[in-house]
């Protein structure tokens, strides 16, 4: 049933030419995916999809299309060659999967050997009730390290391409203009002042509760970043930059990755393998708990700070573009 909704929304996204409506429908698509994952009983993934796909992605795309145009250019030629290539590649891929066992069949190798070992032995070896966290943070810690480094590299890429030098005296002039706009939004500001401490506290709850329920570092970082983004949207970008200044955030994102790597190095220096948490303490269950706690903290720091860096840079660039447009209009009126 939900799959039919997904197909309908996807077709509507492709056919529509107005990018603003497309962004809205992308939000709905992210929500439908999260509901679908909930129906399939995959709680952690639904959590991450709800936070990232329906929240942060929609906000960032809106900032982007408010800078570029909002009409999609119609293509002049019919893309027949591309259609042919896609059809042949898709056909070959489907033909390749006909050999594999059916989706969810009970005698597939992954269900016999890999998953059963995780499910049977996870409680004795690691002692954490949430098996997803134990697989992500302990059995496959090296893959998660790669993911954190990828997120950090994305943040560095945005900083290298899009950052503008921020001069303080421009900040004061645009600050007063933003304040006069923000007087209209009094009710929302008061309600957000009530909500933002709750959201930050909930992010900390999700971070440290990842062992026992759905959660973990990634989701907590995204929720933390979205609270800061809400603050900066309602109170102006300059005040938000004063609250959380740019060098501090860059420092925090580097600290996250370093924390993750140094847990691995500490376990090498204590005599085990890389990311082997059993040697971090006397009792191996305590060692596993300590290791998982530290690396989830590192993941949460990096994800939150990279999201904040990306949003501040996009929004800063947009404000600069708006300021240039305003000066351009003013010069046109004067001349």
């Amino acid at each position, binding site marked *: 049933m939900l799959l039919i909704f997904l197909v309908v929304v996807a077709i509507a996204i492709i056919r529509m030419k107005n990018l603003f409506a497309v962004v809205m429908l992308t939000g709905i698509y992210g929500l439908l995916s999260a509901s679908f994952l909930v129906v399939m009983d995959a709680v952690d993934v639904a959590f991450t999809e709800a936070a990232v796909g329906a929240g942060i992605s929609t906000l960032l795309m809106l900032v982007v299309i408010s800078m570029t145009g909002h009409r999609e250019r119609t293509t002049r030629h019919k893309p027949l060659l591309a259609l042919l290539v896609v059809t042949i590649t898709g056909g070959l891929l489907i033909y390749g999967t006909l050999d594999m066992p059916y989706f969810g069949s009970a005698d597939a190798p992954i269900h016999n050997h890999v998953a059963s070992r995780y499910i049977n032995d996870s409680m004795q070896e690691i002692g954490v009730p949430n098996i997803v966290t134990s697989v992500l943070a302990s059995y496959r810690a090296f893959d998660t390290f790669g993911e954190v480094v990828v997120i950090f590299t994305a943040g560095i890429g945005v900083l290298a391409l899009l950052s503008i030098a921020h001069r303080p005296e421009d900040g004061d002039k645009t600050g007063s203009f933003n304040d006069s706009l923000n*007087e209209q939004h009094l*009710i*929302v500001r008061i*309600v957000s002042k009530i909500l933002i401490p709750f959201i930050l506290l909930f992010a900390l709850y999700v971070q440290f509760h990842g062992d026992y329920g759905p959660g973990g570092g990634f989701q907590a970082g995204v929720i933390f970043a979205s609270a800061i983004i809400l603050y900066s949207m309602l109170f102006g970008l300059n005040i938000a930059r004063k609250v959380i200044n740019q060098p501090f955030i860059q420092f925090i994102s580097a600290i996250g990755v370093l924390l993750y790597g140094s847990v691995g190095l500490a376990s090498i220096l204590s005599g085990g393998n890389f990311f082997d948490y059993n040697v971090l303490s006397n009792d191996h269950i305590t060692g596993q708990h300590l290791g998982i706690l530290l690396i989830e903290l590192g993941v949460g720091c990096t994800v939150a700070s990279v999201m904040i860096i990306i949003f501040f840079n996009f929004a800063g660039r947009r404000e600069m573009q708006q300021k240039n447009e305003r000066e351009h209009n003013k010069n046109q009126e004067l001349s």
Partner: protein
Amino acid sequence: MDIIITISSGLCLFIGSFLCVSGGIGILRFPDFYTRMHAAAVTDTLGTGMILVGLMLLSPDLLIFAKLVMILLLTLLIGPTTSHVLAKAAWYNGLTPKFSSNVIDQKKNKETTSSNP
């Protein structure tokens, strides 16, 4: 005692889902944006409240009850704020209601009163 709890939670769930479906029909059939927003916001908030009260009566232990109370408080706080922000943005960008004849005088009065700091 169990029967009373089950029947009352069933009643709350029924009222809540009826309100939600009628809100969905309203958002399709009403003629104008402002009327549609009435349909969406009012029925959403009350329908959510009813369904959550119905679930609260069925909850097995205290932690789930506390989380449901938290969701209810959040929805009561967020729902009206969102519709207020949406209506204010639509009004300031010039979207006028469909069936009003003297809306321009109202808008002019509103502009002179809102330009005072």
